[in-house]
Structures are given as C-alpha cells and as structure tokens.
C-alpha cells in the first residue's frame, strides 16, 4: 500500500471537519468499492475517513409509515432483519441477493447508494419506493438524488446518514444477476401505494431511472398483461460485453413482469 492518513471519527460533525481540512479525502463505509480501487491504484486519497465509529449511522427502526435504515447497516443485517422482513420484505430479499456472503457482510446500504454504481441494487429500491435520504445537512428526495453514472446530489463531503423508506402496500424486486459479480445486468423495483405505482430500473442505463410508461399502465391495470407489449427505448441503455442495449431494453420489461407477478402473489 501507499501512505495515507487514517481517521476514525466518532461523530458526523467530526468526520465532515476532517474531510474539509484534508487535501483529497475519501469516506470509508464497507470499502467494497473504494479499497479495490485503491489496491489497483485507480484511486489514491490522501486521507481515509472511516465512518465505522459513528454510532448515529447504525440501526434499523420503524417510524410510523417509514422504515428507517442507518447508512452503515451492511447488506447481511438488512437481509436477516426481522423488522425489514415484516415491514418491506422486498428490501430484505434485494439485500440477500447482493454479491456473495463476504460482500454482504462488509458492504453497506449507504455506501451502495452514495456510490451509485450503475448496476447496484439498492438505488432501485430507493427510487422505486420514493425514499427520503437524510444527510448531515439536509433531506433529499429519491427523485432528486440520482443524477448520473456515479453521480448523486450529495455535495463534496456530505454524508448520507440514513434512508427513510415509505412502507408500500406491496413491492417486489427482480433482477438478472451477472453470473460472476451478481451485479444487476438489469434490476426492476416496483412499489404500489394507495393505487399509485412506481417502477425504478437499475443496471440498464448510466444511472437508475423511473419508467413512466410502465408506471402509468400498471396504475391503470395492475397485471402482467398490462405491460406485455411495452417496448422501452434502447438508445440510452448501456451496451457492453455483458449485454447489448437492445437486450437490456427487453430485460427491463421481462423483469418488470416478474416483479408484478411476485406482487400479485402477495395477499
């Protein structure tokens, strides 16, 4: 390794202060993107600020009509939480299918969302449920949060503290995992609440996005048949060695249909 300064603050204010006073700092959550990048020398921050000592970033709780998950909660904790399973089971299922056991025991929900990898799973749940993202400075709506590939509304040094998911009537997540990494080639999260339906798609484009056509058709008639003949525009889809843009566009509808079928099974 090369030299860097390691910090382990115990409060958000302290963490932000260290960030502001460093030349080129990075926050460290689970480290599952940052550390491999550093080992490959693709990133070389002067200062690493380990968020692991900040207790206000931890915990899962239910607050009236919202499920609140601390940013530093790892995927395994979410997957095995009885509270998550009873309040929003689709989130527990989503978390249980991220990466492998090692990844799930280190990687965190906040890290995944703040990093906003184009193929990460959590952004689909955040946008699909219309969550609120609480930072050390403000509250950001999911619709305003994801900007572009690896780009969010978070400002330089801003720290994601917790995610407040509104409890839906029903929700489901379906993805086609890459067989090696388990990243979503395409993942679709659907949530319905008081008759309105939100559909968020990850993996398919540079950033997670909502699919208005699927949403309006499903709001009209919540059935697999309602979206049978929808074709999504492939022009803006990712095209790489794993899947062509046209294949991804088609997968969006296939995964959406599977998620709808899952939701119809929930009584």
């Amino acid at each position, binding site marked *: 390794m090369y030299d860097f300064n390691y910090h382990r603050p115990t409060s958000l204010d302290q963490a932000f202060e260290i960030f502001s006073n460093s030349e080129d700092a990075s926050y460290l959550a689970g480290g599952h993107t940052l550390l491999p*990048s550093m080992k490959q*020398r693709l*990133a070389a921050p002067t200062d690493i600020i380990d968020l692991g000592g900040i207790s206000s970033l931890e915990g899962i709780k239910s607050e009236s009509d919202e499920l609140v998950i601390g940013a530093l909660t790892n995927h395994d904790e979410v997957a095995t939480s009885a509270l998550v399973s009873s309040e929003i089971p689709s989130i527990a299922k989503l978390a249980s299918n991220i990466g492998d056991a090692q990844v799930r025991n280190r990687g965190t929900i906040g890290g995944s969302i703040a*990093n906003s990898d184009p193929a990460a799973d959590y952004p689909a749940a955040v946008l699909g449920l219309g969550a609120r993202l609480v930072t050390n400075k403000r509250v950001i709506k999911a619709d305003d949060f994801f900007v572009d*590939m690896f780009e969010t509304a978070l400002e330089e040094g801003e720290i994601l503290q917790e995610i407040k998911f509104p409890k839906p009537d029903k929700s489901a997540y379906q993805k086609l995992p890459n067989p090696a990494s388990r990243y979503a080639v395409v993942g679709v999260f659907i949530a319905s609440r008081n008759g309105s339906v939100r559909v968020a798609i990850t993996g398919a484009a*540079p950033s997670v996005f909502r699919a208005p056509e699927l949403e309006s058709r499903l709001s009209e008639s919540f059935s697999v048949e309602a979206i049978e003949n929808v074709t999504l525009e492939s022009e803006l889809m990712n095209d790489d060695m794993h899947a062509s843009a046209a294949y991804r566009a088609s997968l969006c509808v296939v995964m959406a249909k599977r998620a709808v079928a899952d939701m119809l099974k929930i009584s």
Partner: protein
Amino acid sequence: MIIEEKQEIAASPEKVWQGLNNPETLRSCLPGCEEFELLGANKFLVVMQAKIGPVKAKFKGEIELDDINPPNSYTITGSGKGGVAGFAKGVARVSLASLNNGDVTEMNYRIEVTVGGKLAQVGSRLVSGAAKKLAGQFFEKFGQELSV
C-alpha cells in the same frame, strides 16, 4: 467503442470553429483539465484529472488536430497515459453545419475510444458509460460557453 452524438449551439459556425481552436476554451470545457498548452502547430499538451466514481486518475497526453477544414470540420487525436491506471486513446471527428441562416450551428461528433491497462480490465463494464459522460460534459459546457 464508438460514441456518436450531435448538438445544437446558438452561435455561428465561425464562432464555434474559433472555440474549437482556442486552447483556453478547450481547457475550460474539458472535465478535470489542469493544463492545456500549445506544443507546436496544432499540437497540445494536456493534463487532466479524470474522476468517475471511485476512480481518480491523472492523465498526461498529447492532442493533435488534423484534417483541418475551417470552419467545417477537423479530427482530434488524443492519447494519454494514466500511470498505473492504464492508457486511453481517442479519435474524434467533429463537423459543423449551419442552421437557421447561421444563427445556430449543429455540431456532430463521432469519437472512437480505446482504453488499456487496468482501466480496461477492471472497468470494462464502465468504460463506455464513463467516456460518454466525459464527452457529454465537454460538449455541453462548450455549447454553453459559446452560446453566451
């Protein structure tokens, strides 16, 4: 990998052409550009800091302008080394067309990008998106700067 886009700029082709040949304009529009110096005729030294997600690498390279046909088109060839991160090469064909009696310029660009080294190994799934994003940022800023 090939990126093909077009963009309309609210300025005459002559003005857009001047911008495309002005090191200062190019420097301020290139995302993360730290240096953009004239080396010789139509040749520039470029240092840029590329930041995409967790990846932050400094690239040093040269940019050369060829097939110059003012004020209609040219080719930019650039290649850069990012130390251990790998290397990137790009050839961009830029052409301009006059719209609206010359008040608006349609700029077409076609970029061919090759990356190698660790960037290509680790980031194969992300390279195309990253290149599109950087090119998009450049041409958007370029358009804004000239429209003012």
